[in-house]
């Protein structure tokens, strides 16, 4: 048997050099995100090539409107999903908050109506938060239950009727544009930046990601897990209500059905954007791209005149293709030790 004994090398242990994240790694991470953005850009260019009217200001603002409704709600959902939670009651919260706006608008100022909507979003979010945190019901079922509860409340409140919004001031505020950009889109961008900030730059966001990653460890680290859980549902409720505020303006009305099925669009935008359902991490930037991607896709199918039934097929197929392409490249995104 050979015996190789090298003498211990004197020197600085390598761990002491202050290494920053390798430039390669930063690039790779960025490319991981850029990738979806790339898909989005390619999609826009391709559609614009086939249908130049895609770049028309009217069309762009239409796309941005669509992206904003989903996106506003998706900001709240991003926080929830990063925390390993979920809220299916989006459609219910939007309905109740919007109906409230539509109901009080004739009697008060727009500002008051808005505040009322956001307050309702917060209260309904609180209900979800308490059920999940203290009654300890799985988020999926708790919020499925409250979805029905809120929808029922909305229908009962309005007797199933539509509550019209006649205030033209409200409508022009919620559907107005600043330059080329729709107001809700601007709000969405601000909210997305805020979401990024909350998630990455605050102790609250860190707590969310911490218990989304390993709840038991977060509790033992002394983090205010319960409070954060309740709070994130409240914040999400406010985001949903905000989406409702603008949606109601666009529809000039509010009613129980106004956002049925919306929860799936919202969750899809978040997940496609790259926030994994298992929690622990979230990307607000991805959510913005995800929301835009869906809006562009739907718009493109209409502009290209794709027949309805084929739209179902193509929507799904494009989505799979887009994600599959990227998934190969960034499969290393799985987190070790997250079993």
């Amino acid at each position, binding site marked *: 048997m050979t015996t190789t004994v090298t003498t211990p090398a004197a020197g600085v242990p390598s761990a002491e050099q202050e290494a920053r994240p390798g430039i390669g790694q930063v690039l790779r991470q960025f490319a991981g995100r850029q990738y979806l953005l790339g898909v989005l850009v390619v999609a826009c260019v391709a559609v614009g090539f086939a249908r130049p009217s895609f770049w028309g200001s009217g069309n762009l603002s239409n796309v941005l*409107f669509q992206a904003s409704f989903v996106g506003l709600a998706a900001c709240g959902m991003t926080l929830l999903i990063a925390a390993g939670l979920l809220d299916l009651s989006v459609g219910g919260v939007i309905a109740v908050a919007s109906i409230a706006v539509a109901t009080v608008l004739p009697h008060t100022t727009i500002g008051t109506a808005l505040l009322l909507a956001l307050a309702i979003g917060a209260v309904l979010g609180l209900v979800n938060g308490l059920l999940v945190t203290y009654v300890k019901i799985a988020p999926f079922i708790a919020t499925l239950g409250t979805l029905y509860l809120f929808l029922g409340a909305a*229908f009962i409140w309005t007797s199933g009727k539509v509550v019209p919004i006649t205030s033209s001031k409200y409508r022009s505020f919620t559907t107005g*544009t600043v330059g080329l950009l729709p107001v809700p889109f601007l709000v969405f961008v601000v909210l997305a930046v805020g979401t990024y900030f909350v998630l990455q730059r605050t102790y609250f966001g860190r707590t969310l990601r911490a218990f989304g990653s390993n709840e038991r460890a977060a509790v033992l680290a002394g983090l205010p897990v319960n409070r954060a859980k309740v709070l994130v549902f409240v914040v999400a409720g406010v985001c949903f209500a905000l989406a409702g505020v603008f949606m109601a303006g666009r529809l*000039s009305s509010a009613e129980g059905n106004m956002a049925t099925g919306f929860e799936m669009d919202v969750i899809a935008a978040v997940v496609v954007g790259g926030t994994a359902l298992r929690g622990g991490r979230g990307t607000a930037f991805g959510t913005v791209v995800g929301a835009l991607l869906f809006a562009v896709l739907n718009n493109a199918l209409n502009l290209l005149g794709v027949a309805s039934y084929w739209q179902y097929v193509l929507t799904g197929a494009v989505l799979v293709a887009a994600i599959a392409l990227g998934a190969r490249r960034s499969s290393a995104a799985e987190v070790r030790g997250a079993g």
Partner: protein
Amino acid sequence: DETTDAATGSTDTGAEVQFEAKDPLKIGYSVYDLQNPYWQSYSAGVKAGAEAAGIEAIVVDQKSDQNAQVSGSLDLINQGISGLIVTPVQPSALPSTIDAAHAAKIPVVIADIGTAGDYDGYILSNNYNGGELAAQHVIAELGDKPGPHKVGVIELHAGSVVGEERVAGFVDTIKANDAFEIVSSLDGNDTVDGGFAAAQDMLSANPDLAVIYAANDDSAIGAQRAMETAGKSVADGFFLIGFDGSDGAQDLIEQGLMSATVAQDPFGQGKRAVETVLALLDGEDPGYDDAAAKTVFFPVELVTGENLADFQAARASQK
């Protein structure tokens, strides 16, 4: 420049809008939901109307989504159409769409369901009247037999505009008659499986149910199957009435499995909607039944086993 800022939502105030036909002449139809046979016929009618006029029709499906109603209509406007036909999932959401269309000098014709805003034409099926027709038929057939006859109603999805009217027309008429009692009114979700489940449960709760009125044909078709399972049959005097006059319902009536359906004329309405748009573009009178409300009325008719053949013949000649 045809592109408009479609989202400003500013309301045109009364001023007469000058329409302008663009070249090539295309019209757009934003349809409620193509999963439903009724709207399939409607859209076929629009296409037929366009073809007859030698123009192109672009159809966009809202897929029952209110937001898609708005964005889909705007997508059409942004494609340089000359006329817009909309069947709104949510009529109250129409005004901003209409404003955008008008800004692009495009006339807007509302196809069924309901209106809001400054529309240029409205093609309407009389849903309340349809409910009345269904009730009157039941009363005529059963009214003198000793009652009270138990009646079940299958509603459209919660919050449906036309559903409310269809149910109201029926219920108001039936309630006025002592021989009938409405014992159950359930949501059939506008679908075959929804209608099945609702009928199943109302038959369980009321084994002596005598009448089911379903507010659309898909749910009536589901209800028929539930009746069969529960051992009820039209042949034995049970009454099953649907709404729409869809092909599926006609088949069941022909086989003696369904009593009647309140037929609307979606195909005819679609054609008429196109004609209305073209007339507006040409500055001609579209021939409204109610000029003040810019409305064209489409009557509904009751189709039973007896008049089915005539009905079908009339419909065939229409195409």
